[in-house]
């Protein structure tokens, strides 16, 4: 039997960590873009747009991410569409992330005083201009801590994609365990790596929160 040093194990896990990071980034950036679109729909003046965004958000928040991954991977396969694991994983995570970010941001936008909308409307601004120049700059500051905080969930959420065969950190952990028969060492390291990714995010969220709250200034 081949002996594996701890370094061998760690090296392989770190290589797979690249995919976890990449998938997290894609989910977060893609989810942010889709989430912004959903946000605009969610607070639109059109009833149909609002309803669409509302049901979308309810659907994706109300079902387990795991089911969404299964449906993206196997479901589309039923229609003869061959979806590679990385695509299904990326897609499901983007859509899932978007539903949460849209709702987080909606809360931030709605926390801006009504007078800000009224004042900017009275000056002749259209809805998009109000959002772009008055509401979002203020909402953004409120949104930073919860958004960064949610990014931790995204990183951990990528672990689920191992189920559909995408080789990221968790999947690599399973593979390496099967080869080395050292589950405690391997999963211990896997957990440590996740922690190393998530802890700075949580911490920065806390720091940002404190910074933005204590100052309590809007500029």
């Amino acid at each position, binding site marked *: 039997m081949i002996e594996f040093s701890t370094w061998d194990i760690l090296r392989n896990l770190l290589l797979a960590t690249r995919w976890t990071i990449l998938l997290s980034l894609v989910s977060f950036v893609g989810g942010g873009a889709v989430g912004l679109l959903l946000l605009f729909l969610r607070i639109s003046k059109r009833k149909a747009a609002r309803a669409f965004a509302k049901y979308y958000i309810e659907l994706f928040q109300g079902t387990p991410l795991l089911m969404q991954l299964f449906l993206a991977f196997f479901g589309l396969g039923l229609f003869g569409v061959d979806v590679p694991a990385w695509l299904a994983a990326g897609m499901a995570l983007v859509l899932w992330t978007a539903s949460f970010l849209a709702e987080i941001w909606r809360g931030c936008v709605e926390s801006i*005083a009504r*007078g*800000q909308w*009224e*004042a*900017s*409307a*009275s*000056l*002749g*601004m*259209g*809805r998009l*201009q109000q959002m772009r*120049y*008055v509401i979002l*700059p*203020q909402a953004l*500051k409120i949104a930073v801590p919860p958004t960064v905080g949610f990014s931790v969930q995204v990183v951990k959420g990528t672990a689920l994609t191992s189920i559909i065969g995408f080789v990221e950190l968790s999947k690599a952990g399973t593979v390496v365990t099967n080869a080395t028969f050292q589950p405690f060492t391997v999963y211990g390291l896997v957990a440590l790596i996740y922690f190393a990714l998530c802890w700075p995010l949580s911490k920065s969220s806390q720091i940002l929160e404190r910074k933005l709250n204590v100052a309590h*200034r*809007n*500029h």
Partner: protein
Amino acid sequence: MSLIEITEIRKSYGTNEVLKGINLDVEPGEVIAIIGKSGSGKSTLLRCINGLETITQGSISVAGAQLIDDELHLKALRLKVGMIFQQFNLFPHLTAGGNVMLSQTVVKKTAKAEAEAVARKMLDRVGLGHKFDAYPDELSGGQQQRVAIARALAMQPIALLCDEITSALDPELVAEVLAVVRELAAEGMTLLMVTHEMRFARDVCSRVVFMHQGRVHEIGPPEEVFANPKTPELQQFLGVH
């Protein structure tokens, strides 16, 4: 033709009718004070004029711009009437100068240098030229309200709506804001103001509108309205018996 024509407007929230058929024509340069108890519909009336509230019936036009509830018509209307609020509603993330410049650059597409020149001029006009770079939370209430006035003026409106603009101010700060309004009136600006400053209304306004239960209950020049209130409601409101 009057500058502002308000014809038979009605406004309901559900089954609660807050404006019950209001008619009011305002001539250019007139200063109108709208007085009345809270809940009499005076703020609602003001907010209907620039479309912040949608009217259920009737029509409003300002210098030929009809109040129609779509973005294009509302914008045209709102370029003609500015509004100043009780709570100032300055944009807290922008400096005083930035507040006055924003709508010029965004709505009118004025070049930045020109917008800045206008902003400095308008801030000077309300006595705050030196506060160009101050953020709203560094200003007193009275100063914030004067910045709000400068912000509205920068759009060169032909009329201004003032919604209880001194009600959120400490008594000592009221005078500085009213002084600015008085000056605007003297320069011929058309003003519609909901106010509790009776003395100011008496001194500056050309007509006083007393609203009661969603209707214009009494209207006339201030000497008449204040000295000879005809209806018992106005007598009670003014505290004369």
